[in-house]
């Protein structure tokens, strides 16, 4: 499939996404919107679409980078504890830095995500050589431990409502003023693209990287920070979108190979398409009500993941 067609499909879906919702706003109204419709369009529909695109592309790329760095097809921010670490960070920032500016609180969450990811990598280095399936299991356990700590303190301090809001990703509450943080994903993706060759080289192993004069440690560390920052920005604004970083990069690399500069645009576009489709699905299936995106992505994603696991021999994952 050519990238062109994928982009075309993405545009078509984006366009239709703008005109699905409870308030009536059809294509024909665009040229003569009432004040109310204009309001809905610019402060709800557009932010929602933009955040879906950025979160979808961002999570898929975060997964791609992680799989490349760990040389394991089953590692992603979901299966490495990154998301849970970010959530723990948010709890800590709510408890300890309640009065601080949002920038401080975001930084705390990001710092936790980075630390969590590095701890996972530390564990990973100690169990290397085991079955590739074993590593994401360790990551999931690690994530669950962090999750239980978060829940424990959330219960104690009556913050459970706030925390569950982040447990399941949700685009329904996105309005102007709440999603702008996501714009940071764009320069991070840009940098990742520029940095892609180095990440590919590192994905071929430490001796391969050293041989061509690339500092293995530096690239791994920068890559992990990119992943952790991107993930926590997305978790902070829309919540957890499970499995996305796992399925999309795996499907894309089956067809496009592991050369990151070549498969990154596909990963970004398909990540966005996948979330957009799930979102449209969630918005229409019990119309006028909505299913949160975390649920749709989780159900469709875990199904696809299971399929990938069962077919892994065939694709040499």
């Amino acid at each position, binding site marked *: 499939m050519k990238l062109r067609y994928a982009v075309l499909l993405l545009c078509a879906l984006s366009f239709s996404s703008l005109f699905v919702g409870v308030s009536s706003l059809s294509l024909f109204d665009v040229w003569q919107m009432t004040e109310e419709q204009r309001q809905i369009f610019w402060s709800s529909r557009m932010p929602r679409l933009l955040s879906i695109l950025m979160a979808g592309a961002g999570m898929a790329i975060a997964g791609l980078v992680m799989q490349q760095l760990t040389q394991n097809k089953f590692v992603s921010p979901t299966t490495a504890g990154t998301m849970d670490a970010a959530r723990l960070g948010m709890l800590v920032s709510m408890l300890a830095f309640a009065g601080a500016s949002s920038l401080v609180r975001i930084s705390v969450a990001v710092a936790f995500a980075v630390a969590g990811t590095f701890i996972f990598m530390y564990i990973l280095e100690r169990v290397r050589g085991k079955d590739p399936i074993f590593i994401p299991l360790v990551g999931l356990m690690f994530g669950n431990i962090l999750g239980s700590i978060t829940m424990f303190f959330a219960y104690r301090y009556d913050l459970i409502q706030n925390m569950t809001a982040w447990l399941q990703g949700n685009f329904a509450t996105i309005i102007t003023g709440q999603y702008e943080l996501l714009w940071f994903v764009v320069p991070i993706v840009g940098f990742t693209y520029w940095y892609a060759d180095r990440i590919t080289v590192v994905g071929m192993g430490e001796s391969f990287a*050293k041989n061509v004069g690339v500092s293995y440690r530096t690239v791994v560390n920068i890559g992990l920070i990119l992943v952790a920052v991107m993930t926590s920005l997305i978790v902070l604004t829309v919540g957890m979108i499970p499995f996305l970083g796992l399925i999309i990069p795996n499907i894309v690399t089956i067809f496009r190979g592991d050369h990151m500069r070549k498969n990154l645009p596909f990963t970004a576009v398909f990540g966005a398409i996948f979330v957009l489709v799930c979102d449209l699905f969630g918005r229409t299936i019990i119309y006028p009500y909505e299913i949160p995106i975390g649920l749709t992505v989780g159900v469709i994603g875990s199904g696809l993941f299971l399929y990938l696991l069962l077919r892994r021999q065939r694709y040499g994952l």
Partner: protein
Amino acid sequence: MILAESVTKQYGAAAVVDEVTASIREGTMTTFIGPNGAGKSTLLSMVSRLLKRDGGSVSIDGMPMEHFHDKELAKKLAILKQSNEMNVRLSIYDLVSFGRFPYSRGRLTAEDRRVIDESIAYVELESMQNKYLDELSGGQRQRAFIAMILAQDTDYILLDEPLNNLDMRHSVQIMKVLRSLVDDLGKTVVLVVHDINFASCYSDFILAMKNGKVVKEGRTWEVIHPDHLKEIYDMDFQVQEINNQKICVYFS
């Protein structure tokens, strides 16, 4: 010339490589031989900067290895570790293009593309250059990695067991390619090989190791001798001359 002086590597109390001094002459093929655990691969890794040494020094063309910048060293000396465990979906062309990374940092110039095409042609993989590595046979895969090293255009090429997991035909093919790198392109090739007869038939110099020490070093013709081989491997060898090549018989 690569010069290693009293190079040492220790794991715990045991020295895997124990104060080894060795030199590798330019424009020749040198083979490291010896039983398992003799320290051949460890020595190769230290000489090629992959592994930090616990003592001694390594110099390349008279300059200590530490004085080279990473990028500069990558244009001078290439190392290929056992490649069969690598699990990446890259096309042959893309893999070989990473050999140009020290020069172009990923943005290929016309000159880079010329070198890549030449390298692929040298190992005769042009017809399948867009195939993914995981679709190749062991021999094709190894040739693809050699093409990548070739594209790196270094004076020194070090290979750790390049014949591992290859059948006889592919092994001969690889050794012929490596030999022609020395004879036709003037490269210096250093490799670790387990099959003593490949070492005997193809290399100019042999460095034999045992228990972390060099037990014999010299021209292939001199080292391949029943007495030396017995000292290295603790077993009996018969050495026969066939077509001007010394063939070792040790199977029974």
